[in-house]
């Protein structure tokens, strides 16, 4: 198995993936390879299939056809929690915190279940791990607060922190910046770039173009469930079909 971009094995290989909802084709024969350590941007108009694609990668949706291979293993039949343990973590477009828990407890769930040795790690060490992730994401002061008291940007960061606590190889961020102010967008973007620097492969779905341009090494644009462009950010932005899809001209 050689990826088109070089001799290195892809971390994630999606082959001929198709997802239908009744008669509606949400993803149509999508194939893409993602390299280890890559910062990958995923764009496309609303309803183009971006979130559906990551639901198929994380296992929330079953696919009609095609395969998802992660780290050389076919994970297509695996349920989401096993995929998480294999190293795929995600955040949600609309934050989904565990509401009855504190911020630290949210991350504890990840420590408990995402790693095999979860319950055997001593309590103090678990707390240290949680606190170091929270410090990295700028939430250390909120550790013992209920998630109900968090602002929108803090919730987004909490989702990323919880995903990080599963020790992922691949982190999928689903519009973590939607609805944030420009300074908040920079905060979250810096955080994602920092995580990318630690060797974690990141797929970022985003509508905010400056963020996509700054973040991504490679960008893929979906429209109506099909890949219409893939390449460097500049190439994709210059693409005629991408401009048509966005501007409708």
């Amino acid at each position, binding site marked *: 198995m050689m990826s088109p971009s070089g001799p290195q094995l892809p971390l994630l290989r999606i082959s001929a993936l198709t997802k239908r909802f009744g008669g509606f084709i949400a993803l149509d024969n999508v194939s893409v390879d993602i390299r280890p350590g890559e910062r990958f941007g995923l764009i496309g108009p609303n309803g183009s299939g971006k979130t559906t694609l990551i639901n198929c990668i*994380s*296992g*929330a949706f079953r696919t009609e056809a095609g395969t998802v291979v992660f780290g050389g293993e076919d994970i297509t039949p695996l*349920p*989401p*929690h096993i995929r*998480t*343990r294999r190293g795929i*973590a*995600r955040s*949600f477009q609309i934050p*989904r*915190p*565990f*509401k*009855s*828990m504190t911020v630290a*407890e949210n991350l*504890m*769930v*990840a420590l*408990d*279940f*995402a*790693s095999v040795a*979860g*319950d055997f790690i001593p309590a103090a060490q678990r707390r240290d791990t949680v606190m170091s992730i929270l410090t990295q994401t700028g939430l250390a002061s909120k550790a013992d607060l209920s998630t109900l008291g968090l602002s929108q940007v803090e919730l987004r960061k909490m989702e990323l922190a*919880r*995903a990080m606590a*599963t020790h992922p190889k691949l982190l999928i961020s689903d519009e973590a910046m939607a609805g944030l102010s420009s300074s908040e967008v920079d905060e979250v973007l810096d955080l994602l770039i920092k995580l990318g620097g630690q060797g974690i492969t990141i797929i970022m779905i985003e509508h905010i173009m400056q963020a996509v341009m700054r973040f991504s090494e490679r960008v893929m644009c979906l429209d109506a469930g099909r890949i219409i462009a893939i390449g460097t950010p500049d190439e994709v932005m210059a693409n005629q079909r991408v401009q048509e899809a966005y501007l409708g001209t």
Partner: protein
Amino acid sequence: MNRNGILFWIGAILFLVAALMMTQVIGNQYPFFACYVILQFIVLAVAWSILGGYAGYVNFGTSAFFGVGVYTAVFLFKAFGAPLAVQIAAAAAVGAFLGFALGLLTLRMQGIFFSIATIALTIIIETSVTNWRFVGGAAGIQMQRPPVMAPFNSYVQMLFFVQALLVVLAVAIARYIQGSWIGRGLQALKDDELAAECTGVPTLRLKVLACVISGALMCAAGAPAAMYLQYADPSSAFNLNYSVSVLAMSLIGGTSHWAGPVVGAIVLGMTQQLLTVTISSEVNVLVLGVMLVLFVVVAPEGIIGLIRRAGRNRRGREA
């Protein structure tokens, strides 16, 4: 074991010693009749809240599990003359199996749909038992108690002590679950099932596990009931009252802590016993309804929630 654990087990042993002492000292049979019912409700409420409280799957089928427990005991006693311990163990096994089947339902059904399915389950099982001649059918069946074993003076006293043992077992299991990874996983899936699954929580396996444990305990609690009444019939063994009372007890006590259903069962169970003696058993249902509405409005987190809030307020004032 930590300090809390030691205190818990000391308390449990003291409770059992007190129960045993009661059987040796008190000659009147009535207290045992009354307390047996309360203990039985503690087991049912604690078992219910393992699924309904920790996992958030509201089960209206308590009476199905209770009735299956009763009839497992009836069948084993009539067919083989099985002793009480075997009746209870077998009922727990059948309850675990039934719980497993219920757990698989959660794969497809959530929220209110799951609850409705549990009511349907009750009706299906009750109808089957009603048409089962061997265990008496709709007319019910009389049970002849075997001779009582030492050190007990009467069979009801023995059943009372056995139910006390089941209380300790149920509470110990609920307490363990609450403090372990199982409890944290159930709490996560109660809050958000998809987010839990994507954080590595094996949601289906945990739900099935909660159903199995809850079902086994409910059936075990029902098994001695046939011998307690010396009689069993489908419409009382599968009475919807069990489902409603147990749900009310758990909610009124509070489901976030194992002590909630215990407190709820004691408070409501005692009230019910008192009303049955002083007014009538029909008033029970009315009082139950009023208390439930009151708590849902005033203290949605139950008595445990009230106590916690009071504790927080006091700490807040001191700080």
